[in-house]
């Protein structure tokens, strides 16, 4: 074995005499070891909304276009990005035509054609498949194969941003030949196919153990010469964020570790060892406080934290419905302290709910960058909230006493402790509550502790959107999206904040194609949310990962898979 290897190396270097560097051979660098502390349960991206599954499958299955670490779109399996200018997008914005690169082979040797893309649409749009990426295929009338390498997607409405289907790691192309029998209700039963999908990417699956480890090897038929540099890929799952960081930064057992939500001083201490590098990619994630506009009093029974209409005039929150209180709460927070204590280089002060892409970021809310306790106190005094003998402000018998909940995570509990102290300085009493993440984010309609039910005054978590277009994200805070009993708390509007002016902007945006107008609208919506303090943004968070100093290539990516450029990774 070893002899054949040596022989093949000798042979290949002999062949390489002609001038191509020896270092350009596929598989020259041996094994690449990745550690994801959440283990993937399937390799089928359409049957799991989890980031870990999307990441794992992204090294095998590819989309037509992909985002880089700056959020810029690059043609991947397509020849170019279709635009109105190059004729790829129709003038009325109702169709987009992609041209697939010729000569791309699936790892089983067959050729990638437009039929695969059409099939992928049929697979994901079938109601019984349970496709978790179906929102990437919204408003599609049909997907047609114009010829063997041209796909046209026809939309029912004008799509100012037609780049959802077949773009990014949420909506890649699967092979028709392999999944033909797995459409609809049979999708979940095709375990063999779901665990070993055939792809066009730089690696192919050799062995998949659900919730444990995946072994990949280099795809011999990968379209780029000499890539990937690694002959095999070990994708290890499980553990916790701290030990994952340690295995890269301190012991160097692994080459790459993903999503390291660990206190900055712990990471810094590990990085001192000098065996690895920490990277933070900034996307759209913002850690924010959600302000409850409805009354969460348990005595209200079914109407607890329930939006009863009237633009928050019915069942209003006893004190958070007061603009002065919300503004004072925001002013009292020193966000720099929160960044330094909990995030370090992986966080920036956040004053907007829409912080990125840069063209959409508003600068109208920079008041939040500096803490102003005097001003906050002044506002509350002026609004008639008077300090009682216990130092807590009250008005008409209503005390400023806040129940503040979030998920269990030591960084979040640190933030809670700081904010409690900061609010104490303006005469606000805070009771902290932390809930297990699996319950808080679990979405069980029977549990009173979910973030959707919001049986508290303030709650804190991070939200973001993938891709680069904010339209659907900003539509989260329209009245229609209010999380309530009627939609089994499925709406995205947790603050239960309802404003017809905002709804009008959202509707306008869905009909506007011009980029400058869309930017103006997105900023206006962001400013409306921020200036009414429907949410209090705290920290613009980066995704943190670490890679070993023996390899080169990881860039981090908040817009697409962290492994988007894994074909380019190599040993130093």
């Amino acid at each position, binding site marked *: 074995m070893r002899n054949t290897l040596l022989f093949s190396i000798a042979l290949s270097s002999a062949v390489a005499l002609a001038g191509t560097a020896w270092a350009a051979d596929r598989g020259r660098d041996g094994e690449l070891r990745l550690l994801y502390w959440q283990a993937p349960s399937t390799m089928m991206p359409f049957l799991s909304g989890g980031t870990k599954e999307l990441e794992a499958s992204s090294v095998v299955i590819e989309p037509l276009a992909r985002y880089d670490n700056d959020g810029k779109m690059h043609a991947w399996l397509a020849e170019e990005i279709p635009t109105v200018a190059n004729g790829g997008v129709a003038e009325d914005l109702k169709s987009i035509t992609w041209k697939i690169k010729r000569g791309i082979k699936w790892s089983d040797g067959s050729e990638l054609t437009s039929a695969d893309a059409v099939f992928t649409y049929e697979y994901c749009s079938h109601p019984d498949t349970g496709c978790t990426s179906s929102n990437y295929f919204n408003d599609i009338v049909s997907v047609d194969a114009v010829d063997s390498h041209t796909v046209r997607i026809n939309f029912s409405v004008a799509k100012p941003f037609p780049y959802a289907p077949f773009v990014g790691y949420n909506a890649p192309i699967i092979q028709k030949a392999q999944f033909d029998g797995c459409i609809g209700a049979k999708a979940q039963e095709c375990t063999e196919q779901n665990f070993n999908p055939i792809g066009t990417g730089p690696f192919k699956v050799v062995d998949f153990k659900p919730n444990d480890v995946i072994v990949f090897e280099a795809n011999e038929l990968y379209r780029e010469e000499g890539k990937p540099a690694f002959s095999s890929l070990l994708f290890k799952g499980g553990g916790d964020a701290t030990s994952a960081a340690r295995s890269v930064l301190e012991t160097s057992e692994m080459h790459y570790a993903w999503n390291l939500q660990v*206190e900055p001083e*712990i990471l810094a201490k590990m990085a001192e060892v000098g065996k690895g590098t920490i990277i933070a990619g900034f996307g759209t994630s913002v850690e924010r406080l959600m302000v409850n506009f409805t009354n969460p009093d*348990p005595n209200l029974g079914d109407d607890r934290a329930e939006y009863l209409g009237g633009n928050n005039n019915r069942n209003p929150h006893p004190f958070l419905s007061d603009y002065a209180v919300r503004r004072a709460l925001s002013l009292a927070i020193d966000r720099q302290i929160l960044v330094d*204590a909990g995030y370090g280089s992986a966080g920036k002060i956040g004053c907007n709910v829409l912080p990125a892409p840069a063209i959409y970021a508003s600068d109208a809310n920079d008041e939040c960058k500096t803490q102003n306790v005097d001003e906050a106190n002044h506002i509350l005094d002026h609004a008639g909230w008077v300090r009682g003998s216990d130092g807590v402000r009250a008005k008409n018998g209503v005390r400023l006493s806040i129940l503040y909940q979030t998920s269990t995570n030591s960084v979040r509990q*640190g933030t809670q*402790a700081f904010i409690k102290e900061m609010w104490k300085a303006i005469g606000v009493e805070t009771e*902290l509550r932390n*809930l*297990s993440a699996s319950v808080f984010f679990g979405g069980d309609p029977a549990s009173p502790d979910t973030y959707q039910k919001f049986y508290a005054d303030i709650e804190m978590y991070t939200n973001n959107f993938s891709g680069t277009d904010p339209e659907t994200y900003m539509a989260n805070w329209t009245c229609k999206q209010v999380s309530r009993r009627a939609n089994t708390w499925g709406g995205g509007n947790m603050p239960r904040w309802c404003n017809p002016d905002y709804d009008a902007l959202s509707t306008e945006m869905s009909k506007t194609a011009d980029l400058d107008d869309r930017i103006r609208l997105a900023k206006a919506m962001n400013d409306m949310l921020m200036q009414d303090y429907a949410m209090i943004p705290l920290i613009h968070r980066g995704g943190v990962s670490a890679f070993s100093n023996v390899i080169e290539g990881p860039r981090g990516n908040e817009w697409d898979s962290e492994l988007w450029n894994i074909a380019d990774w190599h040993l130093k």
Partner: protein
Amino acid sequence: MDSAVIETEHRSMWTDVWRQFRKHKGALVGVFVFAFIIIAVFVGPPIHGVDPNAIDFKARNLSPEWAHPLGTDNIGHDTLAQMLAGGQVSLAVGLSAALIALILGTLIGVLAGFVKSLNGPLMRLTDVFLSLPLLPLLLVSIMLFRDTLRAAFGPETGIFLLIVGLIGVTSWMHTARIVRGDVLSIKEREFVTAAHSIGTRRHRIVFRHILPNILSPIMVSATLGIANAIITESALSFLGLGFPPDFPTWGRLLYDGTNFIQITPSRVIWPGVFIALTVLSVNYIGDGLRDALDPRLRGR
């Protein structure tokens, strides 16, 4: 027995117990350590004079120094102040929960062992409790009672009562089984039969003749119960079912500190040492008490 001794020296049962107890070196040390911990935890805070929830952002991750004898944590809390405040809660939870479990377990065990008709139903009840998965039970109870208790007693006392109650109610089963077994064997002994025959009432028999004889296993399970309650509380806090996150307990301090073991080792060492010392000293006290309370061992 020598009748002369009885005439010259007046000895009560409890002086005998104390004499025997003093002979157990480990138990004496245990009493000393446990008393020290209790005094430190309840007398310490006014002497140290630092609010456990005060945050000093500039003093984060400090090593031990004069102002902060055990250093500070990553958000600037004084570790000593947190240790003392956490100790009050942990000890209170441990002792009260163990007491509830002890009383419930003994009551059910004695009833099951002594009253024939209750034996079956009570032991099946014990089996039911043993087979209940603890965590879902806690989840449901906390969902049902948290808001009511919070409204009635405030967030901290409400949760304290809930946690103590829940731990107590879910950890009496082993005590009950052990007690029942001992009661069953002791109630057939001659001295119990003798007591019956002279017309002693049943509750007198239980308190005068049976309980003193089964005190040792009860003591042992009670001391184990204290340790168990402290640990269970910390697990609950971690799951977000326990006390509010700004309410320190030893278990929570230990859990929060583990990631910082390289930066501020004192955050892990002290809560660990104190949990271990408490559990050990209580165990030794229990051991000593068992020897001292056992009439067959006493006086040897």
